[in-house]
């Protein structure tokens, strides 16, 4: 159903509050709060325990870090034994650059696959989806050889390229799906107005902002938390990522749990912040998206 002008009516977040309309408000919030607790309590436990002494983690794991149990030893070790500030920067650069490539190129490919009917469309779509079907570690030696030949070992570029290649299949897969749902009238109107296909693409892109935000989050998390490729491709001190840096506290027989919890707690923060940013754009996109 669309308005006469051919444009869909965007959802309007009305200024006057109206009640949530599924069941009653109490029930809705009860379920949401209930599951939110299930989701968040273990996370809180981790954060709390990162501020405790080792003994306290195992003797009183559920108490908050009050006086006797409080200790910053984990965070101290983190910053003394390793250059975590640099690791954070590295992780941010790799994730940011890879995501930019993935989102831009993935949106382009997804747009083309959703929009144009050409012979082999389905096969190209299948080809671009093959990547998610095979355990990625299988290609380790080949990837390492390629990077070695390109002299990219121990650079962030190697990681960016590999993560971009890995994130593209999923991005194309998902964005293609959401792009199919953009109304044809809008695009045809633009073409009649004389816009090139590239302008049409830029027109369509904001309309699938929720999907783009979703894909951004989906690709960012495995990149941020990945251990294997930083280990193989860029283990040098200058290029270590946060996750790799946290691994050094896992020993053969002794793990410095304070430092591990501290480093992985801190590692959580940027990703969560990025998620909050992206999910806000999800909502905002819908209020402004349809109109130029």
């Amino acid at each position, binding site marked *: 159903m669309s308005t006469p002008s051919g444009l869909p009516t965007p959802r309007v977040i009305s200024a006057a509050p109206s009640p949530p309309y599924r069941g009653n408000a109490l029930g809705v919030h009860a379920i949401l709060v209930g599951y939110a607790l299930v989701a968040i309590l273990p996370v809180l436990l981790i954060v709390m325990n990162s501020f405790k002494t080792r003994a306290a983690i195992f003797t009183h794991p559920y108490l908050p870090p009050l006086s006797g149990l409080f200790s910053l030893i984990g965070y101290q070790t983190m910053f003394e034994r390793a250059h975590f500030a640099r690791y954070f920067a590295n992780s941010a650069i790799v994730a940011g650059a890879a995501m930019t490539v993935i989102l*831009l190129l993935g949106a382009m490919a997804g747009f083309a696959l959703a929009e144009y009917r050409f012979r082999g469309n389905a096969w190209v779509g299948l080809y671009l989806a093959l990547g998610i079907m095979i355990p990625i570690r299988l290609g380790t030696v080949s990837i*390492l050889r390629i990077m070695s030949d390109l002299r990219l*070992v121990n650079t962030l570029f190697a990681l960016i390229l590999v993560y971009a290649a890995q994130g593209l299949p999923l991005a194309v897969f998902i964005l293609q799906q959401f792009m199919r749902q953009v109304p044809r009238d809008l695009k045809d109107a633009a073409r009649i107005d004389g816009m090139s296909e590239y302008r049409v693409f830029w027109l369509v892109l904001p309309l699938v902002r929720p999907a783009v935000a979703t894909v951004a989050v989906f690709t960012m998390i495995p990149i941020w938390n990945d251990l294997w490729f930083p280990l193989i491709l860029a283990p*040098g001190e*200058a*290029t270590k990522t946060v996750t790799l840096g946290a*691994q*050094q506290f896992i020993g053969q027989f002794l793990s410095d749990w304070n430092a591990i919890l501290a480093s992985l707690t801190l590692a959580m923060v940027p990703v969560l912040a990025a998620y909050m940013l992206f999910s806000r754009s999800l909502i905002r996109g819908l209020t402004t998206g349809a109109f130029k």
Partner: protein
Amino acid sequence: MAKVRLSCLLATLFFLLAGYTVPVPQLAAQGQVSLTIESWRNDDLPVWQDTILPAFTKHYQNIKAVFGPTAPTEYNAALNAKLSGTAAGDLITCRPFDLSLGLFKQGFLAPLNDLPGMSNFGPVAKSAWITDDGRTVFCVPMASVIHGFIYNADIFKQLGLTPPKTEAEFFQVLDKIKQDGRYVPLAMGTADQWEAATMGFQNIGPNYWKGEQGRQALIAGKAKLTDPDYVAVWRTLAKWRPYLASGFEAQKYPDSQNLFTLGKAAIYPAGSWEVALFNRQAQFKMGAFPPPLPAGATQCYISDHTDIAMGMNAKTRHPEEAKKFLAWMTTSEFASLYSNALPGFFSLSNQKVTLKDPLAQTFLDWRSTCKSTIRNSYQILSRGEPNLENELWRVSAGVISGKLSPEEAAVQVQNGLVKWYKPQQTK
């Protein structure tokens, strides 16, 4: 459009930053060479950074060695990938026996026969890092670890116990601790599986299969894992179950360590590597006793396992400097430094080392009264599939948790061995 421009700017910024961190090869002081050491010993990072490497730098100011460990679970896989992809470090910490032999055969490790100082190591020490024909050594032996039992001396005093010498005494001690009810008698779990094999089977086993005698017989095909001696080991292990903590099936290795160091358990089946850690974390006095003798036995045997060595990447760009480092590792200075900085890892050098740590010394003293042997699954017997060591893990954990009977365990590992190991395939 503003958004698009902004995104493009951001993207360019990211790429610029990425380029900035590409390390420019340093044209540092002439002759300054950097060596990277691959290792799985994340635990030792502080020791290397603070103690060992500074001592080396005093001798060779122009060589900067960097200790770059990998998480232990990833080490083998990551190292293999890096060696295949020609991107590995200069010095490689060697696992004992077939893993390193495999690396040498693939041409990844350099032969070290002419390394000055190799004569400081005896045949037993080199046995884990030498070709089958005994001719080519490819790693410098660093340390061995000894197995036994560490106990909480305060708890023993409190309950009036003395370290047991025989198995009968051992179970009496366990019974007393269990009756008292305040402490867990034995700190061990089966969630990680390897403790059951390494601190269980390989710990008390040598007393049953008479150390090297039994191990060589297995290799020659003269003894089988289904022989009474081996089944008896599993039978004894099965008797440990009532003395383990409740829910031990989900108790992991760090849990066992914490259980002991927090003073909640009395006895810890141990490898000597625990000494350094326990010294730091336990707030009570500790002692150690060797594996108790089974009924009727008089000669004791200990597992004195050649565990860790250092080799050279055959494709390193700095072979001269790497060899200098390895040569330094054969000196008594290194032996003394290492054994004292990491008590519980005993240098394999012929040279005498005085240990400052009393608990480590206790373990070392057993060498004079008991006969040493290495873990029986490591040499040759784990070359095929199914892998004997992994199978021993699985069945030992199963026996202790009561899922497998000792006889079944023996049959399973023997059948696995027979599948590929020719000397065991006769009859």
